[in-house]
């Protein structure tokens, strides 16, 4: 018997709007508990939801980046269940009419290109935070109501590696669009996967196992690979699989049972009557898309058009901050290849050495370009430039300042020399 894995992914991304999805309380982290709460977030009776415009704009942009059909009618539904972290006893979501449908994402590598279908993208809200102590729990409603996008793929992913690439690609889109921090470590990006095995050539789907609470990209691949093997062994042994929810145990590097799926929970969905459906005009959607920040894929192509190679272009789009840094430099008119070399070699090694990210760099893009321009004008040598750069990383001064401070200018010597030559016979 030959099996092929059938994998689907569900991603939740927290949006970095200023205020919450359905209330005007701030979206902010690390603040004193219960200091960012509006009446709706704690479900005081009589509170009503109001829809955040910026969150809708963000959702439209992500839909567009995922090649989805955008629904121009916004309707919200209630997902009803009881839990201590769900103040209203229901979550506002979009069950019947998600804002985005029928999209896809293309996974590219040197060796393959694969389109993964995306079934839906919808808007919902986050639950409140619970801290569990020994015999009590504490509730903090700061997180309650923060906007979430839920992105659901079609079960067209075939391996742990593909799954990891998928999530990385979605993360790239979310961060380049500047709509989410996309950090799995702090919960602004959450990922659940469904794994089943299907007999090769058959249409019949196997038993689905859900893996939740994955907290890093590498764990996505590891968990899925383990799970595929686990299911394969059981099936080859003639055993039956149970519908389960599992989690990845990092210590044991295995998926571990959380709970057996009993019934499908009945959430008693119905359309929320407090939000009259909102018509998004063509102009509104168009503008949201037009004003969209540039995606990594587009930047990548642009960098290739500057004459950079694939490898360098990939490195420069590995994060939004790095590509923004590079783009800021490009604006000065500096030679792209030179800039790319400096960023990838010198800036990266400086960041690695100091263990900081590019936003914390003491050398700004503009200052780096100034340095590069001195090299191009032959005012300093490459060797001198490296010394200057090193000093820039310490003091934060501009190249010009450091050159003058240290009397390093070749130009000044040459100019002086040529002036002397003019005077002397």
């Amino acid at each position, binding site marked *: 018997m030959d099996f092929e894995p059938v994998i689907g992914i569900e991603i939740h991304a927290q949006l970095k709007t200023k205020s919450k999805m359905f209330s005007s309380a701030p979206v902010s982290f690390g603040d004193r508990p219960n200091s960012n709460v509006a009446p709706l977030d704690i479900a*005081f*009776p*009589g509170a009503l939801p109001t829809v955040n415009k910026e969150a809708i704009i963000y959702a439209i942009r992500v839909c567009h980046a995922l090649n989805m059909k955008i629904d121009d009618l916004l309707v919200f539904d209630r997902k009803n269940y009881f839990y201590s972290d769900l103040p209203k006893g229901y979550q506002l979501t979009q069950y019947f009419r998600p804002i985005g449908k029928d999209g896809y994402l293309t996974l590219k590598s040197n060796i393959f290109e694969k389109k993964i279908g995306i079934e839906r993208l919808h808007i919902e809200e986050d639950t409140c935070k619970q801290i569990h102590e020994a015999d009590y729990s504490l509730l903090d409603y700061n997180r309650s109501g923060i906007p979430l996008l839920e992105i659901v793929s079609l079960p067209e992913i075939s391996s742990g590696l593909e799954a990891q690439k998928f999530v990385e690609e979605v993360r790239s889109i979310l961060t380049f669009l500047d709509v989410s921090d996309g950090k799995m470590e702090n919960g602004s990006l959450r990922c659940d996967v469904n794994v089943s095995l299907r007999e090769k050539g058959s249409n019949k789907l196997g038993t689905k196992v859900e893996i939740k609470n994955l907290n890093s990209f590498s764990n996505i691949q590891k968990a899925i690979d383990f799970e595929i093997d686990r299911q394969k062994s059981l099936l080859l042994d003639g055993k039956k699989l149970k519908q389960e929810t599992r989690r990845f145990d990092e210590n044991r590097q295995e998926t571990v049972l959380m709970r057996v799926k009993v019934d499908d929970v009945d959430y008693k969905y*119905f359309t929320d009557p407090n939000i009259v459906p909102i018509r998004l005009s063509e102009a509104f959607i168009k503008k949201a898309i037009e004003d969209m920040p540039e995606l990594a894929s587009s930047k990548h192509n642009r960098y290739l058009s500057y004459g950079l190679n694939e490898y360098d272009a990939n490195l420069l789009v590995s994060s939004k901050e790095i590509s923004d840094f590079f783009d800021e430099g490009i604006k000065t008119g500096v030679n792209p290849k030179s800039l790319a070399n400096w960023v990838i070699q010198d800036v990266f090694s400086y960041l690695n050495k100091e263990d900081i990210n590019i936003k914390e760099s003491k050398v700004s893009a503009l200052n780096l370009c100034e340095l590069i321009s001195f090299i191009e004008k032959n005012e300093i040598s490459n060797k001198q430039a490296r010394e200057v750069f090193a000093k820039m990383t310490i003091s934060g001064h501009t190249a010009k300042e450091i050159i003058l401070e240290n009397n390093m200018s070749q130009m000044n010597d040459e100019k002086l020399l040529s002036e002397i030559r003019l005077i002397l016979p």
Partner: protein
Amino acid sequence: MRYLSKPLKEIHDAILRNEVTPLDLVKEGLSYVGKDNNNAFEYICNKEAIDAVNKLDSSKKNSLLYGVPIVIKDCFSTKSIPTTASSNMLSDYIPCFDAEVVTRLKNAGAIIIGKTTMDELAMGGSGTSGRKGMTYNPWDKRRKHIIGGSSCGSAAAVSSGLTPIGIGSDTGDSVRKPASYSGLVGFKPTWGRISRYGMFQFASSLDHVAYFTRNVFDSAYLLNVLAGHDNKDFSSGYEDVIDYTKDLSKSIKGKRIAVIKEVLDCCSPKTIECFNKTLDQLRVEGAIVDIVSIDEKILKAIYPTYFIISSSEATSNNANLDGLKFGSRCEGNSFEEVMINTRTKCFSPLIKRRFIIGSLSLSKTHREELFVRAQKCRRLIVDSFNKVFEKYDFIYCPASPTTAPLFKGYNPRFNGDVNVADNYLAFANFGGNPSITIPIGFENNMPFGGNFTAKPHFDSELLNVASILEKHTGLMNLVKENE
């Protein structure tokens, strides 16, 4: 001299003439409210009202509500004033924000002197299911007749002359029916005309802010104060707020009024007799009155449709009452136990039964046959009435089959015997139509009313026809004082 049993204009004139001050009015109000024996109050704002009237901004003196004490149903959030929805679940809940209607009333200079009793969580029509028990009908000193509900306390307060205005809510008929039983004007504007922000939700797609007054002018004036879009309520409408008192005396010549035969046929002989007199009076004014027919199957479907939809939405709307973050809390070893113990103890059996029905109606197994079918039937019902509105400006029927029923034998439970005239008013909630009850007669010294309903957004026209009829009947400013 009693002022609060008078119409708004008279109270206001007395203030302008310095015959009485807002403080006097508030003291009068609190004094009479304190002596209320109809069980109309959850909370009396003894301190809060005096504080408010002392801080009253005299620049608001032109408002007819300036310094006027009013009462509000206890399902409206009032900052720092306990709000219980007459439920043990919320017996010590003190909100930290005002409902929008409360804000607008305060801005107009009104002084809240009491939160009134209601059927628990607004689910009921008898005025008997609140945590403090039965609210009595001031018109019946022997206390044998209900006042109806769910806005029982506000109805009792206004009809016993304690204040000229009582704010309530109307989800199926919860203002328009008790208005009939207590000789009041009960007005429910178009859905979305008044912001529901801060009004505890029963069934959001049916809920309306509604209120009691003793004459149509006061109702129209109050609409001027309360109407208008609110950004905090994403279901509130954007129509311009006009002066709703402007066209009250406009001629109704040529207006077409439809009476539903099937509703009229279910009423008592005395009701029919008085009602027919009002038809003559309307004709004298030049209106064209026709008896029309609506399929009885549709009319009989109104109550079960209302019951299913309201129970379903209510289950969800009250899922926030879980004992964890506000309201009553019972002990437990886990949060689940706290939730279960609290909800078991603090909801009455009536509420629980409705929740179970609502929950099952929304469940995957029963959804199509119950909730979705009820939603479809809602459309059929609204379409049927809209067909009448294609040819007629108003639908006018008795607001209740007869006077207020007796407490004894009154069954608040869903029962199969559906008197169409007892259960048709909900059609105006289904379609969001503006609808108003005004007194039209008495039987055995108990009042009963007639109800006009118009197309959505025709609130001004509705108030106009009610005002014209009111002039003919002369049945306005009816008060039955407490002894």
